[in-house]
């Protein structure tokens, strides 16, 4: 499996009035063709920042301070803004949480898909609209020719997310980043939306990064899971391995906090302690140390990532 995206040593900081936020620290992972990788972690752990930084969508305060992110042989961290704009939407696309707000409220949905096709596929107005209607059909929107002239406020949240997917995959990108794509949708719609993404991915060999705080969703939909905590990827393993034999203490806690289909809701145990303040100048090497019950004196010496088993990588001195 050749890597579509190869991220290594990737760090991001935000310069704010109240100090420097070290949002990502030496993040590394790869995603292969047709592979779905999940990026999971609590809210605020840096999942969205990872996605925005990869696509060059960070606001002015955010900077990639080191590392590489190679998409199909092109290092995104070294690309000019113009090059990035040509890659975005064409080779790497993204869908978001809250799909209705993510669509232009006063532009017909077909037009919004056509805009992307015109920009990246260089289609004429008419061909772009025909392509847009075809995309609406592919994401399962009934009566696509008529719906193309609808506005987001006339559609349900699930329909809006389908439109969002159509915009993202219209140009057959090599990589799709889905940032909490089903949050806020009802359970049936969640399944439908994820099915559509999976179908398009398998048809086109698109690599998918599924960002979610829902470990159950990640377990169901991805072949590999990377667990993020306070800007570090603390564990990265095949889904089966990670569920059966989590090695990082944080992964274990996360698994324990996730209600399974069998377990009652009372089984949900929240993780003690909070994410550390990422603006601190004296951030410990392991950002989980303060919450960890397996902490050793050596934990304060430094953090290293190591393969503890084939295809299982962790950042911990004292794995479980």
């Amino acid at each position, binding site marked *: 499996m050749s890597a579509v995206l190869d991220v290594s040593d990737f760090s991001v900081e935000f310069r704010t009035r109240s100090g420097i936020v070290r949002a990502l620290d030496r993040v590394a992972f790869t995603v292969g063709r047709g592979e779905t990788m999940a990026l999971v972690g609590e809210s605020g752990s840096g999942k969205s920042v990872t996605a925005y930084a990869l696509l060059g969508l960070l606001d002015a305060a955010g900077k990639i301070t080191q590392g590489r992110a190679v998409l199909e042989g092109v290092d995104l961290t070294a690309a000019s803004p113009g090059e990035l704009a040509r890659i975005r939407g064409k080779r790497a696309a993204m869908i978001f949480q809250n799909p209705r707000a993510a669509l232009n409220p*006063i532009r017909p949905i077909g037009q919004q898909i056509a*805009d992307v096709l015109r920009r990246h596929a260089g289609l004429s107005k008419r061909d772009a609209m025909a392509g847009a209607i075809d995309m609406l059909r592919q994401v399962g929107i009934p009566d696509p020719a008529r719906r193309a002239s609808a506005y987001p406020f006339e559609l349900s949240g699930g329909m809006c997310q389908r439109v969002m997917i159509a915009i993202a995959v219209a140009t057959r990108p090599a990589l799709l980043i889905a940032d909490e794509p089903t949050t806020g949708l009802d359970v049936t719609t969640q399944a439908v939306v994820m099915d559509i993404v999976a179908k398009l991915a398998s048809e086109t060999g698109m690599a998918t990064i599924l960002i979610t705080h829902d470990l159950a969703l990640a377990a169901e939909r991805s072949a590999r899971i990377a667990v993020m905590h306070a800007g570090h990827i603390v564990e990265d393993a095949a889904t089966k391995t990670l569920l059966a034999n989590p090695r990082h203490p944080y992964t274990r806690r996360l698994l324990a906090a996730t209600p399974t289909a069998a377990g009652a809701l009372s089984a949900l145990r929240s993780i003690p302690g909070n994410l550390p303040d990422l603006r601190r100048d004296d951030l410990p090497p392991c950002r989980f140390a303060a919450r960890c019950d397996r902490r050793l004196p050596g934990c304060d010496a430094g953090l290293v990532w190591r393969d503890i088993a084939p295809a299982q990588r962790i950042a911990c001195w004292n794995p479980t």
Partner: protein
Amino acid sequence: MWRLAGSLPALVAVIIVTFVLTRVLPGDTATYFAGPTASAESIAQIRAALGLDRPLPEQFWSYVQALARGDLGMSLTTGQPVLVDIMNRLPASAELTLFGLLIAMGIAIPLGVLAAVKQGSLADHLCRVVVTAGVSLPVFFTGLLLVYVFYYLLGWSPAPVGRLDAFASAPPFITGFYLVDAALARDWETWHSALAQIILPACTLGLFALAPIARITRASMLAVLGAEFIRTARASGLSSRTIILTYALRNALLPVVTTLGMVFSFLLGANVLVEKVFAWPGIGSYAVEALIASDGAPVQGFVLTMAILYVLLNLTIDLVNRALDPRARHS
């Protein structure tokens, strides 16, 4: 149509208020027209002729009846029906106000957009200066200042004596807007004269309108640029031109249009002063002259015209909003 009906109560209120106002205002019309040397009898005679000796409700009733016939009364100063005077003068005011608004929009909207897109840039600072200055300069002051600088000091513009200089004659009436009519008649000499006359008063109004439009454009643009659908547009790699003009600006224009309506109604008010400063033969200066002469009918006619203009204006804003915003079309 419903909106038109909804504004009827407001119009009725305006009719009552203007009527009452012109009756309780100081200054006795009959005395004014009888002249300083008139005897008590001749004043009483004039008062009876004008119907001013009858009880107020009766006066009001005959006023309303006349209104229903489209009769706004006679102007005692010009000796013409008020309706005719106002119809003759309305195009002058409308041309001036619209031209002023166009100047303001042509500067303020691009300035506001630039200021929002490039925060902290020269355009942003300029925008801030304009907004502050526009708020603190009263309109008659800018008017006089412009006349002083461009006519008196520099001599670039002609004397502020109305819509045309003394040697030009009005173009044939089509719209009543001299710039439009002269252009339609291909009479470029008159067109130039009309332009030279209108530019200073229009700039005065424009400067007045600049600040609120620039401020709302900048704020609205900033809000839209931070919206999630702009992030989607950027994530889709759309060109910055498409993002700023097609995605951001069209959405940002919705509050701007509403503000334009407000600014336009302020301009109608500011017009009164500007017309006075530039001897502009519009309905504003007409009303001021009538007010000084205690001539009630033109003042009533003026206020009523303003109220009708205001209603029509709101209707237009509504239509434009519907054209721009599909959500407004639905509700």
